[in-house]
């Protein structure tokens, strides 16, 4: 009898112990949650999503690794049922074109298998017939980043100058920064392709193919007459309080305030701003140089927070945001576009070019370069320029792609339209060849 009572007491104690431990755990979680600052949780945190669902925050939005593309293609083309159309060098038309083609390329990148080497013959055969879509950049964009901008994903570490998607053969070709060709099998949904074709508006064109010694995917337009205004660089007046540039916005782009410690250099032509972790040199001509120690305050992501493509995407986003703010400071309509992403000694170097009205502006030096060590921005150099059309307005027509292709010598096989400064200081649009 007493043995039975003892067993009951023992069971009751065990149950009480378990219950008390569970209650303790629940209270620990409650106290931890109570001390959390929800505002500091990133949007991809599960806890944040649960909190929003339970306590009435925003719901039903998407999470993206990278929000805004740091580069828009210079040319986009779509061919369906033998009819090929394309847009080029017009921000509005390219913007509309990329919107029409985003789902198409996003889904194709996501469905792409492993890329392997290909050759010009295989590309020529694919270009000969069938439905296809093309993106062409004046730079080399990592494919993983490009896929992210299109709402897709891709694990390849290639950098693409051109992306060619073929519907009938379900292939995706990438022309890399070295001019080599890589191909992967993918899946192109009929509905997605048809929708892109329906939404895409452009002018008639064809591929160069084997006709000339330029890359076979070079777009040759019918009756092409690209003409652009001549432009000139005008002074920025960064340090003039009555000027139309905002030094405060420029400083804040790099995490400084106008009250930061500063001193003049080079007879006042350069002002150096200093804080505990970095130095910012702002020259009257618009050259801005930022350098920081390892503990710099401008960061793309915290240590261990991102890796691989996500880390690269965060670095590009960080640089783009700084550049956007810097350009806003001088109130220009020009755009910064990602040109290349390089890796050396564990550092990432991003280079951007500036474009005016969708046309790149070539200068002696890069428009902007950023060096990241992990998530920290170590150094940056931006050559800010404000351009305006010359008065009275002068337009110049650029050599059509077909004529330029006919004159190609086979060593430099890509075509480009860009502004370049002449001896008189004016920037003229011209046709260039590049590798």
């Amino acid at each position, binding site marked *: 009898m007493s043995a039975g009572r003892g067993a009951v007491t*023992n069971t009751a*104690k*065990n149950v*009480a*112990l378990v219950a*008390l*431990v569970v*209650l*303790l755990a629940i*209270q*620990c979680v*409650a*106290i931890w949650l*109570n001390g959390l600052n*929800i*505002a*500091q*949780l*990133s*949007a*991809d945190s599960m806890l*944040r999503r649960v*909190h929003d669902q339970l*306590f*009435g*925050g*925003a*719901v*039903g*939005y*998407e*999470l*993206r*690794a*990278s*929000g*805004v593309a740091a580069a828009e293609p210079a040319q986009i083309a779509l061919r369906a049922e033998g009819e090929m159309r394309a847009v080029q060098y*017009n921000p*509005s*038309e390219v*913007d*509309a074109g990329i*919107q*029409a083609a985003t789902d198409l390329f996003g889904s194709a990148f996501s469905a792409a298998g492993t890329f392997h080497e290909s050759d010009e013959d295989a590309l020529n055969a694919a270009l000969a017939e069938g439905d296809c879509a093309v993106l062409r950049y004046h730079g080399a964009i990592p494919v993983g980043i490009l896929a992210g901008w299109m709402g897709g994903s891709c694990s390849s570490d290639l950098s693409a100058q051109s992306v060619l998607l073929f519907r009938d053969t379900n292939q995706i070709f990438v022309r890399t920064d070295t001019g080599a060709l890589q191909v992967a099998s993918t899946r192109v949904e009929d509905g997605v392709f048809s*929708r892109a074709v329906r*939404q895409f*508006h452009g002018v008639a064109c064809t591929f160069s193919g084997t006709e000339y010694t330029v890359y076979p995917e070079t777009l040759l337009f019918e009756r092409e007459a690209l003409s652009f205004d001549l432009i000139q660089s005008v002074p920025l007046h960064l340090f003039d309080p009555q000027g139309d540039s905002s030094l405060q916005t420029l400083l804040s782009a790099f995490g400084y305030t106008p009250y930061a410690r500063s001193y003049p250099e080079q007879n006042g032509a350069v002002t150096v701003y200093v804080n505990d972790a970095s130095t910012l040199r702002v020259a009257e001509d618009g050259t801005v140089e930022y350098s920081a120690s390892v503990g710099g305050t401008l960061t793309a*992501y915290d240590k261990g*927070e*991102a890796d691989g493509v*996500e880390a690269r995407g*965060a670095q590009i*986003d960080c640089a783009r945001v700084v550049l*956007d703010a810097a350009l*806003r400071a001088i109130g220009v309509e020009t755009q910064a576009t990602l040109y290349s992403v390089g890796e050396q000694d564990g550092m990432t170097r991003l280079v951007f070019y500036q474009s005016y009205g969708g046309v790149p502006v070539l200068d002696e030096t890069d428009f902007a370069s950023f060096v990241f060590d992990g998530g920290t921005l170590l150094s940056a150099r931006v050559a800010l320029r404000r351009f305006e059309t010359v008065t009275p307005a002068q337009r110049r027509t650029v050599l059509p792609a077909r004529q330029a292709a006919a004159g190609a010598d086979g060593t430099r096989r890509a075509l480009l339209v860009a502004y370049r400064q002449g001896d008189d200081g004016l920037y003229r649009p011209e046709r260039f060849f590049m590798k």
Partner: protein
Amino acid sequence: MQWDKVKNILIVILLAVNLFMLGNLALKSYNDHHRAVELRRDVQTLLEARGIALDDGFVLPDDLVLPQLSVDRSRTEEEQVAFAMLGTDAARSEDDEGNVRYESTRGMVTWSGDGTVQGSIRQDEGVPADDREALRRARQLFERWGLKPGDGTIEVVEHSIATLSGPVAGMAVHNRHLTLFFGEDGTVQLTGYWSFGVPYTLASETGVSCSAADALLAFVAEHPEVKNVYGMDLGYRLLTDSSRRLQLVPTWKIKTDSIDFLVDCAKKTTI
């Protein structure tokens, strides 16, 4: 026997720790509640000192954290709506600013990059006879055009004007609405500000803390002329940033005796 004693001791310790933590939580909860009540009273006192009365039914909303969202412009959906309004034979043209104009014998509609829409569409019927008729026709038109109200609402003013407003990401967007003007000649004028598609935020983005008391105090400091505050709602405001991208920015709407004011949650300034 030894285990029995150990269990007793453990139960006593766990009970004590649990009671202590429970007391802590209860105290914190009571303090939070007390502070919220005190804050409401302080805000009311401050407002009254400035000669501003709060409506009897006014309740200071709870603070909330909202993410700043972005929306992609969808030319695809703009075109679908335009074709539904004007027919698929509508001619499309786009200027350098990105304004897309659709035109046909049935009228015209223009979509701008900042979300503004403006149109004039010929219909067979004139001005609705009453508010009920206006509501029915507005609902019919919006649905036919593919602008489904969803959780949104259609409001009718003077039986010739109807306004459609719709939430995004489960929150009200204070300036996202389309207004229909029914003309006597059978045309319908459409104006407003609209967005399409699912909004997004970046994975690394943190939220914007939206404090009702802060917003209200910042508002009354900027607008001492206001005499009555009827209520305040948290939501978003649709705007384009310097790079002409559509953004949804957390914003309070404060309803007063004159007009409704919008107060930016992050900047705490009246728009």
